[in-house]
């Protein structure tokens, strides 16, 4: 039995409980924006809801899931106990304290600033300090992951680090780099402003620091999904990973190119030159390469599995895959949604073209497809895959797991296709209500109602997800689960040795530093050299 069992389960339940609340808020927000009359609708309730939905999904669900999953991988992939379990629990409680502080600030109307909290609009300092505590907790997790891998390498000199752990540590290293931007913004600008210690703030600088974090954070959320693609799905489908080396290369490329690209969120901002916007646009194009590589490697792995099961033909093998297996199904659905989400992303990052859709519902559709359609659906699949090992009992009716995944994918598509369309029509995001009596807006109504239906399907899926995870704790559904250790996918050609650069991160850290210096050096330095006028801090709440 796993020694980290309780630790992992506790993290997962915090993540999924938060997710359940956040999804109800999300559905209500769609209701508010539709022509139908939503209850409780005031501007304050709406924007508090958006703040809570974003914080819950983006910061709490993800961070706690990733930490819990990381502990699971460290123990099962390295096949040794997790070092520093006391630290892990300390980090957990620190994170919980932070979440409680942030939630309390939001529900008392003192942090109606949305999860992007752009100054000079500032809420209660306790909201930001709460978020900082969550980040610090995740830094402790990063340290534990790095130490676990280092200890394993010392005990297994020259051996390739198992891919699942290599990828987890790549994510930890990337996250440490990623959080520098938002940490600097919070500690030196936003929190002093929220306490009233400073009265003006350099908004250009704060937006630039936030953009440092804003793109790479999505890869922090996404990498567990990719870990599942590479190290879980091929085995669950009955095959092997096509190429272990390509997996390592992919995770290294994510580490390199997730970071120096954040300025594509600032294309429409007046404080940066076209030159640096263009440089970061070019780097953003490079970050699509590891995703293209993944699509190929995982499709090839699935083809291996299907042919082993007797599949034939150029595309006929797809039928032979074990679609009844939740992980295989989730991988297929995630790839499907990744095409739409990624395709939308290609438009967003296309420099001049971004003007057509910036801050419209198109963007909301894009990141819900990436987040919900690729990240969260794989979180579901991971939970289904590791739950028997955590609880000791297996799922009695796997049909319900598949139903839940299908509902999620259908709901996500029904919700986001109208958003894409409305975004192209110019429907802007982040407002509580539309004036449907306006003839220019009236035509949007039916589309918004369709997306609300999509949201309701997602809500049904989320409820079923929670129900699915509960039975293993309940007596009536108990069946003895697997007693053998969790197995990850083997590579078609298991590596006996890998080059040292693909077994550690020293070189890559150096390259990240150089890339960040090139991409963000001057854009940040300019705020200190040119004396841009500062904005007056606007505090909300009490």
């Amino acid at each position: 039995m796993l020694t980290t069992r309780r630790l992992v389960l506790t993290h997962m339940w915090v993540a999924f409980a938060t997710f359940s609340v956040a999804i109800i808020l999300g559905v209500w927000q769609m209701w508010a924006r539709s022509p139908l009359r939503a209850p409780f609708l005031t501007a304050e309730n709406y924007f508090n809801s958006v703040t809570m939905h974003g914080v819950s999904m983006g910061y709490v669900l993800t961070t706690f899931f990733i930490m819990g999953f990381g502990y699971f991988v460290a123990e099962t992939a390295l096949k040794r106990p997790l070092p520093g379990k006391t630290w892990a629990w300390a980090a957990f409680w620190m994170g919980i304290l932070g979440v409680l502080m942030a939630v309390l600030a939001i529900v008392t109307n003192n942090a109606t600033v949305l999860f992007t909290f752009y100054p000079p609009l500032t809420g209660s300092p306790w909201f930001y300090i709460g978020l900082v505590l969550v980040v610090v907790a995740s830094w402790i997790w990063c340290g534990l992951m790095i130490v676990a891998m280092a200890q394993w390498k010392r005990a297994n000199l020259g051996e390739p680090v198992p891919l699942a752990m290599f990828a987890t540590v790549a994510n930890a290293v990337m996250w440490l780099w990623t959080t520098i931007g938002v940490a600097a913004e919070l500690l030196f600008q936003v929190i002093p402003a929220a306490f009233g210690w400073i009265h003006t703030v350099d908004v250009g600088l704060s937006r630039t620091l936030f953009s440092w974090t804003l793109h790479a954070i999505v890869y922090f959320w996404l990498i567990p999904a990719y870990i599942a693609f590479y190290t879980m799905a091929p085995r669950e489908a009955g095959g092997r990973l096509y190429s272990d080396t390509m997996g390592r290369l992919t995770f290294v490329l994510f580490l390199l190119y997730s970071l120096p690209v954040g300025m594509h969120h600032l294309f429409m901002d007046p404080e940066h030159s076209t030159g640096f916007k263009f440089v970061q646009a070019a780097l953003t194009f490079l970050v699509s390469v590891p995703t293209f590589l993944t699509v190929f490697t995982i499709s090839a792995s699935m083809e291996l599995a299907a042919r082993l099961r007797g599949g034939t033909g150029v595309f006929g093998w797809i039928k032979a895959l074990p679609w009844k297996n939740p992980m295989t199904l989730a991988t297929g659905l995630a790839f499907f949604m990744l095409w739409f989400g990624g395709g939308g992303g290609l438009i967003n990052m296309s420099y001049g073209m971004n003007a057509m859709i910036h801050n419209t519902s198109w963007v909301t559709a894009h990141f819900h497809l990436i987040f919900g359609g690729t990240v969260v659906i794989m979180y579901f699949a991971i939970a289904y895959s590791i739950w028997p090992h955590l609880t000791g009992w297996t799922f009695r009716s796997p049909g319900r797991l598949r139903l839940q995944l299908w509902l999620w994918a259908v709901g996500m598509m029904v919700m986001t296709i109208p958003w894409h369309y409305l975004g192209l029509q110019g429907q802007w995001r982040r407002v509580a209500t539309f004036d449907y009596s306006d003839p220019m807006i009236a035509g949007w109504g039916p589309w918004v109602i369709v997306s609300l239906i999509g949201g309701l399907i997602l809500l049904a899926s989320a409820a079923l997800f929670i129900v699915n995870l509960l039975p293993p704790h309940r007596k009536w559904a108990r069946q003895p689960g697997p007693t053998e250790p969790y197995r990850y996918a083997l590579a078609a050609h298991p590596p006996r040795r890998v080059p040292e650069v693909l077994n550690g991160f020293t070189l890559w850290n150096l390259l990240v530093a150089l890339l960040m210096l090139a991409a963000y050096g001057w854009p940040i330095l300019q705020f200190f050299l040119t004396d841009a006028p500062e904005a007056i801090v606007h505090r909300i709440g009490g």
Partner: protein
Amino acid sequence: MSGPEGEEKVVKSELRWALAAGAVVFIIFAAVLWAAITMRMNPPSNIEHADPATLHMQGEFTESNLGTTVEPDGRVTVRMVATQFAFVPNCLMVPQGREVTFRFVSPDVIHGILITGTNVNTMIVPGYVAQVHTVFRQSGDMLMPCHEFCGLGHSEMIARVQVVPADQFRPGPDGRAHCEGQTPLVNTAAPGVPAGDVDAGAQAQGPLVSGEPSPDPAQATQDAVAAAQPATGE
């Protein structure tokens, strides 16, 4: 060994795919570069400062200078203040088929605008002038909402843009053009009248540096909508 292929074949196929994927990405990128150079498809990036604390008191963005102006050399410039929770002015008239330059500032928090049915889009960041050049290809009424959360009145922060055919765009002798039915910010005042003395109209409040929300932003917007109504269907 479970797959039908040897390790070398695996590496070769991966590299082939990487080249193909790289080529696709490169072609898209080349198209973006082409559009940037030949069609001037660049994002707004003029890095021009404007002090949020003083912009309403002196210089380009004083109240009397806001709205649509035809400059002596014939260029059309629109100057606008985005403030919690209204645009000043809240309706604009611009000509179809001519280059129009929008210049936005904010005295308080971050705002942003788009104009529906066009690719006019920019963030309005306090401390900077956000500038966008565009040519309107179609006439008619369009919405110009605030698209970045700026506070509780954000949802009601919407302006109108009336695009009129070039021959119907008739600025006054002072070079200013106003929406039909809209109380002009400046009542065709004779040149030389100090800006501060001019009646600014009912809902066209000056930018509020304190950030206090207007007493009833929803009401202000409804006034704007009503004011713009006669122009609908043009």
